[in-house]
């Protein structure tokens, strides 16, 4: 399975890993880490909005959060997706 990641497990960052799902499998978002219990829905919305803006489909996304702001989460998701696509 093809996958790519971006980010770190440092404070205020997050590690985002994306992997290709099967055709038509849609988007699966998995969240873990320090901010998830309080901000799950906001974080999931940020991830999904970023994926939508990138036109990304059929992906599994794992976010390991270390207190990342939404701007950081957006950046890490975009970087991981672009890396998966080979766009550096």
């Amino acid at each position: 399975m093809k996958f790519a990641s971006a980010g770190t497990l440092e404070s205020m960052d997050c590690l985002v890993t994306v992997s290709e799902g099967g055709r038509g499998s849609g988007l699966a978002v998995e969240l873990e880490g320090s901010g998830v219990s309080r901000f799950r829905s906001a974080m999931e919305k940020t991830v999904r909005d970023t994926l939508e803006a990138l036109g990304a489909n059929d992906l599994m996304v794992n976010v390991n959060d270390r207190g990342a702001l939404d701007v950081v989460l957006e950046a890490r998701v975009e970087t991981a997706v672009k890396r998966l696509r080979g766009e550096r």
Partner: protein
Amino acid sequence: MRRTMLYLPGNNPNMLVRGHLFGSDGIVMDMEDAVALSEKDAARIMISKFLRRGDFGRVEVTVRINGADTEFWKKDLEAVVPCKRLDGIRLPKADSPQIIKDVDEELSRLEDKYGIAQGHIKLFCILETAYGIWHAYDVATASKRVTAILPGGEDLVADLKTSRTPEGTELEWSRRMIVIAARAAGVDAIDLMFPRVTDDKGLRRDAQFSKDLGFDGKSVIHPNQIPVIHEIFTPSEKEIEKAQRIIAAAEDARARGLGTVSVDGRMVDVPVVKRAHYILVKAGLEKEDE
């Protein structure tokens, strides 16, 4: 005012979030030396996201892109120029007028593409070779965008075929030449950063030397360096009070048709008045063009 410009590693969210809160006059989000080769893409995206939010208060916001001798610089510019809040580009290895012209042309193309006023984005040129230092005036006048020139650090030391000393002797003349070229060209001179972050005495000595040479400020690599440099580059109450008396005396003399006057036993002529205005500018009491 550019007394301090704080470098923030471009792939470090922790510093990017807080960087503008430490009180420096400017920040420099770094895509170059502070970012590993494998993370250039991540830093480019991270910085552009932060710039789009535009939440930096009143600090001058700049980005150090990768040098024009790399494969990255055009992508770097494409990522940051359209963003809401970008005042300038810090260009490393800006060692010839041709490099400045190439970057200026690319900036003009991008400003046109994204509907930004032509010339809005300023250039801060780092001169990192002996050739660059020798041609500092030509670099500073190669484009109207150039607003400041800066001496390089490690690369310049290597190019001079010398090594770092605690006294900084190896870069002394390069720093002097930067100030002379900057003043001749009418741009700012910003000195290199002081690398030893826990050496306050050394920082104080180095910053005083920068000020005495005529620099407008310094690059900074740690927030703790900011107050020390501000203290040195900000005029004291006594200096401000004297500058105000000099300007008042000169204005009074002019109104009464007198040629010269004296303040504290010293003749007040045009250069003295000019210096007094400069002190008030540095104190934030006058604007540059008043």
